[in-house]
């Protein structure tokens, strides 16, 4: 498979990069806390926590490198192969989950599933900003999936 590309405005790149610096350290914690780790076997549970923690660290690194390397106007992130694209997709999912847990904790699941219907004026500025970034990360995911596997869409 040829390399995959994600394009965004330089302004979006700057805003998303700034948010990632803030949220990435917490994303690892959210990932491990959310996991349904088997409680019956301490050895297995330890392995799961170790695996998920290591993956979260790798995802944070991948995102930081990708956004820092997105040069030009518009800014372009280049993912050299399918494995990197999958890792990038998972990393974006981790960030969205962290935003959900840490920033939108008081927003219901139903509201979040229809995020475009949320009345911006009712949200504090920080939440509005984070919601815009949450949507942008989602758009990047959709764009990447459309390139990787168009049949995944209905």
């Amino acid at each position, binding site marked *: 498979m040829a390399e995959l590309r994600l394009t965004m405005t330089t302004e979006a790149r700057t805003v998303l990069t700034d948010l990632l610096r803030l949220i990435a350290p917490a994303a690892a914690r959210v990932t491990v806390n959310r996991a*349904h780790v088997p409680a019956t076997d301490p050895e297995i549970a330890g392995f799961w926590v170790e695996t*998920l923690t290591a993956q979260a660290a790798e995802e944070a690194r991948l995102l930081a490198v990708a956004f820092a390397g997105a040069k030009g106007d518009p800014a372009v992130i280049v993912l050299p192969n399918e494995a990197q694209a999958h890792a990038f997709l998972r990393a974006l999912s981790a960030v969205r989950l962290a935003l959900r847990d840490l920033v939108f904790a008081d927003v219901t699941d139903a509201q979040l599933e229809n995020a475009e219907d949320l009345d911006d004026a009712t949200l504090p500025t920080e939440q509005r900003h984070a919601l815009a970034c949450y949507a942008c990360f989602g758009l990047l995911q959709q764009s990447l*999936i459309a390139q990787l596997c168009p049949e*995944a869409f209905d």
Partner: protein
Amino acid sequence: MAKPKLKPEIKTESLVSAAPRWNVVVLNDPINYQAYVVLAFMNVLRLGAAEAKRLMRVIHAEGRATVWTGGRERAEMLSLELQQWHLNSLLEQDG
């Protein structure tokens, strides 16, 4: 003189019980897009797009679906892999 052949009386009884089976269950979540979930199923469970979409729709409609059933070790591995895709998966003993 040939000795008479003794026919030992052998009784057999099956003492083997089937190993417990485990379900890998995925719960609905409002964060991951449907296409993302389909892609995760295609990669982790090695499903075709049609079956992956069918499971995704069940989860969306009913809140959860069993996506795989079988031995414990494999179920644990698949559940961990699904969680590495940040899906809300868990293990349940079948039956």
